């Protein structure tokens, strides 16, 4: 017998997107039952790690404009972003910042008490709204705390969702494991918002939380929804060694320099006007070129790196505006940035791609929306600008929360629940994984998989590497790692770790397939064998659908409103 729970709105994932959606839905209606389901404790989602800022136009009187924010984003996206979606983002953002402020967000302030903003890569105005360098943390806290106001939001802490159930057209429910007890549940609902975040842990050197695996993407993918533009993976220029923890772009926004072995600010060669504050893909490529041409440092661990110099900013700026950077650097690398430059190297940081949605965040299945990093409404195109992601989470959290609540209130008829799918899923995870057998250590397999991704689909890519990477991933997939040695029910993270690995394989494959197919260099996807952007053949989005045999690739047009593609220079 499967345990079953009945709710109206299910929100899977409790990052910024999930929580913003929950609040909006609860505001829209106080009678619908909302469940926020997360494999972590709700307040511990990866969003707490976001550091630098949230982009919004707050000071038009000082020269900023929605136009400018939109154009910076379009240009940042290397013209692959859907322009109607981008316009919506920039239009909705200012009020989101004020709304968060009204809910208690401790934004850093100007002397006159108004909200502070700082410079960020790729922007032509200082519009990264900040709260010290813990923006995501404070936003999560504000949303989590504001959720406590509403009695119709229920949190399901540490429930691992395994699949999405629909009848081919309409959403019906999900299956999930309550981790503390190990019980398997069906949760029925009328609408679903997928907000499971990014999947950067498919790379071994990554800024992401250890829980950022692609289970949510994979769930949607297996349920027949397309994954879009997955080949675009953002590598942030400054991951600190050896941990890969992020040093925010805010550090360069406040005036930090990148230096090579010859103590040279090499960015003046690559982006003479914006220097260190060019968009992330540009800076990361410049750094890898420096390293590949032998002008990097060797870190103690044997890894190549460059230096990020903040010493000239002085103690005051570092302790007041970048306290977390100093803390991270002191704690995890033993370096005080007040006195010494930090060792950094490009690091996997963001997935531009995700579940294919339209401008409203709606997926191809009725009653299912996706928001946040898990979704791809194409706001970031081929490269996201810093500070635009938390913004996206807020805006589409709000939009989808509102639409889903209204959809439920409309009371559309529900299809009969396809119980057989629950049985199939139960068989897949319990017979296929929990009771599976094999000899390979799944954790070693996971390490190998992520290292393949790091070496074959990193900042610079080429056909040979990518094809080889795909081959290696598929061979690795065939090994017998689908077994769980821990047989207990309670809090069996061995079991969930293996399920995460299972999803990593499918999504890694999608990333590689998309990257092989896209024979051009655009945004974060830089092919050494096709160094130029090719608008004639590749001005489109990549869609990948699941199939039991071989994934199916399709394309999807890009929406252009005002801004015609031109060459992108910083």
């Amino acid at each position, binding site marked *: 017998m499967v345990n079953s729970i009945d709710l109206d709105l299910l929100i899977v994932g409790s990052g910024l997107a999930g929580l913003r959606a929950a609040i909006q839905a609860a*505001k829209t209606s106080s009678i619908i039952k909302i469940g926020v389901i997360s494999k*972590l*404790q709700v*307040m*511990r*989602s990866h969003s*707490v*790690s976001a550091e630098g800022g949230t982009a919004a136009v707050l000071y038009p009187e000082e020269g900023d404009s929605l136009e400018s924010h939109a154009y910076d984003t379009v240009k940042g996206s290397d013209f692959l972003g859907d322009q109607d979606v981008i316009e919506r983002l920039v239009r909705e953002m200012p009020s989101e910042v004020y*709304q968060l402020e*009204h*809910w*208690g967000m*401790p*934004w*850093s*302030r100007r*002397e*006159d*008490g*108004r909200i502070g903003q700082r410079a960020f890569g790729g922007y032509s105005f200082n519009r990264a709204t900040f709260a010290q360098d813990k923006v995501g*943390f*404070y936003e999560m*806290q504000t949303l989590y*705390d*504001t959720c*406590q106001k509403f009695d119709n939001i229920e949190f399901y802490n540490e429930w691992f969702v395994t699949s999405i159930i629909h009848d081919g057209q309409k959403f019906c429910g999900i299956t999930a494991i309550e981790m*503390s007890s190990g019980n398997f549940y069906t949760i029925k609902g009328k609408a679903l918002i997928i907000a499971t975040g990014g999947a950067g842990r498919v790379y071994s*050197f990554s800024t992401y*939380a250890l829980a950022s695996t692609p289970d949510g993407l994979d769930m949607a993918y297996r349920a027949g929804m397309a994954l879009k533009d997955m080949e675009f993976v953002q590598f942030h220029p400054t991951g600190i060694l050896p*941990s890969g923890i992020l040093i925010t772009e805010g550090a360069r926004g406040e005036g930090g320099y990148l230096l090579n072995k010859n103590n040279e600010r090499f960015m003046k060669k690559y982006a003479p006007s914006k220097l260190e504050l060019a968009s992330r893909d540009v800076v990361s490529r410049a750094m*890898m*070129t420096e*390293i*590949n041409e032998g002008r990097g440092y060797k870190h103690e*661990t*044997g*890894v*190549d790196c460059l230096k990020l110099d903040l010493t000239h900013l002085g103690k005051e700026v570092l302790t007041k505006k970048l306290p977390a950077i100093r*803390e*991270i650097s002191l704690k995890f690398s*033993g370096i005080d940035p007040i006195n010494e430059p930090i060792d950094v*190297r490009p690091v996997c940081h963001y997935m531009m791609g995700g579940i294919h949605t339209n401008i409203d965040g709606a997926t191809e299945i009725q009653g299912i929306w996706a928001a946040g990093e898990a979704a791809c409404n194409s706001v970031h195109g081929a490269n996201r600008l810093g500070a635009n992601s938390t913004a996206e989470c807020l805006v589409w959290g709000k939009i989808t929360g509102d639409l889903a609540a209204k959809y439920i209130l409309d009371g559309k008829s529900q299809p009969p629940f396809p119980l057989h799918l629950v049985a199939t899923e139960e068989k897949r995870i319990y017979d296929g994984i929990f009771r599976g057998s094999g000899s390979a*250590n799944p*954790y070693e397999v996971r*390490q190998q998989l992520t*290292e393949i991704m*790091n070496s074959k689909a*990193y900042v*610079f890519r*080429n056909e040979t590497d990518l094809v080889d990477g795909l081959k290696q991933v598929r061979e690795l997939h065939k090994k017998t790692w689908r077994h*769980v*040695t*821990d047989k*207990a029910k*309670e*809090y*069996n*993270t*061995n079991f969930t*770790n293996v399920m995460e690995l299972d999803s990593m394989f499918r999504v890694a494959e999608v990333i590689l397939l998309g990257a092989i197919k896209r024979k051009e260099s655009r945004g974060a996807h830089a092919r050494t064998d096709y160094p130029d952007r090719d608008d004639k053949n590749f001005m489109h989005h990549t869609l990948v659908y699941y199939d039991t045999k071989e994934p199916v690739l399709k394309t999807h047009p890009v929406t252009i409103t005002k801004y015609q593609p031109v060459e992108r220079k910083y």
Partner: protein
Amino acid sequence: MATVSVPKSSEETTTQPSTITLRIKRSNPSESTEKTFSEFQVPVQKWTTVLEAILYVKQNLDHSVGVRYSCRQASCGSCGMKINGKPALACYTKLSELGTSIVTVEPMNNFPIIRDLAVNFEQLISNHKKIKPFIVREDSEITPGTKEFIQKPEDLEKFLQFSYCIKCGLCNSACPTMATDTSFLGPQALAQAFRYTADNRDQGKDERLKIVDDSHGIWRCHFAGSCSHVCPKGVDPAMAIQLLRGYLLGFRK
């Protein structure tokens, strides 16, 4: 062609790793209620954290270790546990700074154990909810054209430090009242009650004071200071609680 070097996993690095003995307290409610220790040998380097050591065990020696973690950078609050007898974040404690060759990790006190090092947070979560941790005022929902409530940097300073709280529960684990009082609100919740009360945008002071002025509320804090002693984020709940009590005693307005 661009070649990309990959950061190596810890074993292959240049510095010679030494090893420590990691003792993990185990308990699994479905098998037996007995609490026992398992011992493992773990290679360490100067920056190896306790969390990394535990994950090394989980990945290579015993997959069944139950431990909660996520961000590995002291922002999410998952990995609180007792390390060599004191509550601390595993991802924020380096083995090298402990300076012992045997490191003992146990689940946090004053929380029910789910399994091994993972504990149940229901009480912390519901106590946090009880103290109305949000801005209480009528116009907290914006309308078109709304701008921000003005908040000077010095107004911000009055509560900012208390909003550093990552809800890790270490303070509740260290507090002597929490050790025996199952109904105590606890330093985490009380500090948040002050955080919102001290915010110049908030108007919920009276409501919140009523909530904490209970037989298991703020008065069960005796300023033992242990909460602040272990807080990894500099929140200083002990200060927050005394300042909040200042309102009740009429020392503050």
